[in-house]
């Protein structure tokens, strides 16, 4: 049928309506996804209006009284604001410093391994924790770190001679979270870097070696430039989600003893909003997080483009 054929030939111009009609099958395929986006993504975006109300489920969106920026004022002037910012940024920055480079280093090391069965076995093992739920990671952490019979607790006791309670002392909480992230995700995170590394032309290495480059110079001048743009893209995404600390992980490791270092924006929104029923206040807190996140992604993206990288959008 000629009428279904796409205008592959240049210059075969038709009216917009006719072209749209020809593509009706494609629009039909697009429809379920569009409805999904509107219902589950865009309607909740409009739902943020309750941050400017004193929302009550009985009065609804239209009946609840408008209070302007009162909820935001309450949040910014309250005692919790600085505690939340300290914990959220503290965990995020530690993640950025220690967890972000971990898969890159591991990928560089895996790349140096020439023994192929060893490399394959190592890869198979390090990917596994990615597929394990945080409920299990939390449970494993309790098994290993608890002060009664946790093996890591006993090892630390033997080495330092001190009784280190990692699970309930607030000062260890950030390190615990970052350590869990490194253990769980750095293996899986190598995939994207190893893929970039496999694309490096072998001749580049040979040429550099002929010129007398050693292991470190090869890594610095050939390997790292090859994965630079991948690193930049991953970095943009990480900077953009600086206020996203992950609900589940922190929620599951948080307890009444370490809460002073464990309450982050995400857990706070849950505690105040869902458990406490302060819908408007917690929506305002969430909206603050969304806006800061958006500004940071866009700025990081702009910066990457200025540095000559392609960026995300």
């Amino acid at each position, binding site marked *: *049928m000629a009428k*279904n*054929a796409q*205008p*592959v030939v240049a210059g075969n111009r038709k009216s*917009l309506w006719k072209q*749209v009609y020809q*593509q*009706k*099958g*494609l*629009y039909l*395929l*697009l429809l*379920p*996804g569009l409805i*999904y*986006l509107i219902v*589950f993504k*865009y*309607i*909740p*975006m*409009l*739902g*943020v209006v309750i941050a400017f109300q004193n929302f009550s*489920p009985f009065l609804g969106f239209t009946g609840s009284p408008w209070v302007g920026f009162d909820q935001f004022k309450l949040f910014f002037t309250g005692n919790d604001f600085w505690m939340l910012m300290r914990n959220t940024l503290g965990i995020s920055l530690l993640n950025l410093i220690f967890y972000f480079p971990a898969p890159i280093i*591991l990928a560089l*090391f895996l790349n140096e*391994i*020439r023994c192929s069965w*060893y490399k394959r076995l190592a890869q198979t*093992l*390090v990917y*596994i924790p990615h*597929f394990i*739920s*945080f*409920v*299990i990671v*939390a*449970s494993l952490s*309790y*098994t290993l770190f608890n002060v009664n019979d946790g*093996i890591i607790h*006993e090892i630390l006791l033997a080495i330092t001679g001190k009784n280190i309670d990692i699970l309930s002392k607030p000062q260890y909480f950030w390190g615990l979270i970052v350590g869990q992230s490194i253990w769980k995700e750095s293996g899986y995170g190598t*995939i*994207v870097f190893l*893929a970039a590394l496999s694309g490096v032309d*072998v001749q580049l290495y040979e040429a550099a070696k002929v010129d007398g480059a050693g*292991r470190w110079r090869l890594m610095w001048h050939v390997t790292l430039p090859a994965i630079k743009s991948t690193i930049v893209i991953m970095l943009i995404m990480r900077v953009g989600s600086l206020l996203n600390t992950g609900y589940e992980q922190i929620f*599951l490791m948080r307890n009444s003893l370490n809460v002073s270092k464990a309450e982050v924006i995400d857990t706070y929104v*849950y505690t105040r909003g*869902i458990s406490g029923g302060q819908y408007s206040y*917690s*929506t305002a807190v*969430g909206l603050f997080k*969304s806006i800061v996140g*958006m500004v940071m992604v866009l700025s990081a993206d702009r910066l990457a483009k200025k540095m000559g990288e*392609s960026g995300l959008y």
Partner: protein
Amino acid sequence: MAAAKTKNKIKRSVGDQIVQVLIYIFVGVFAVSTVLPFLYVVAGSFATEKELTQRAFFIIPHEWSLNAFRYIINDGAIFRGLKNSAFVTIVGTFVNMAFTTTFAYPLSRKYLKGRNFFMNMVIITMLFSGGMIPGYLLISGLGMLDSFASLILPGAISVFNMVIVKNFFQEIPTELEEAAKIDGCSDIGIFFKIILPLSKPVIASISLFYAVGHWNDYFNAMLYIRDPNKEVVQIALRRIVLLAGGANPDGSPIDFGEFGAPPEKAVKMAATVVSTVPILVVYPFVQKYFTKGVMVGAVKG
């Protein structure tokens, strides 16, 4: 392997060899550290409570016992959780794939009228979201609280996965599509008869990502499900891990009634094993696909 050959030709210094050995050891230690906790948990689930209290770590128990598994079978909660999670995972992954592939295909066609508009619609959802509370109010407003739909529909499309699928579709040679069009095949026909059958690797890996997400989901179930009969496996597991400690979440001691105090440590471990096995069984079969899937996603689109 040309790199390996040239490497051998050049004589290595002693220092270089030491670095090489250190790299092997470091990677080996990290790889072992990712599985050791699991080996201990599996061993512990078959061990007696006495041994678990006496020995801090072991891979093979001195004395084997099935008491922990008997306890969780009697208790029944974990199996109800497994059943509910299996349902959510199977139906949920199917819904995910249906929405994701149908949405990705038109967006992968550069000639689609309004493609930029639709892509921008997607990108906006990556940049900004309403947050937890408006999402919760929507689910409750739609009457979806306490239904499995609340665990399936709100995450029907993950933008990240959708972009991976779209990039894969873009790589398929357009000649195939043009030939089919000349033969009178419609766009929908092309999608089902040509594009989907050619996309098995990406479908396998993305299905795995979605399935693992459903199986491991804890937070959404905690938000939306109150009915104990609809408890999913991660919630059941969390409850067993907390309760087997002999205390309610608020710290008060539990009255165990006629069964008496359970073999608490072994029970935690047995519950962990039972809820992890399904993933570890599937893992070896899909491993070769997911590396491919992630690599396709690494191509910017």
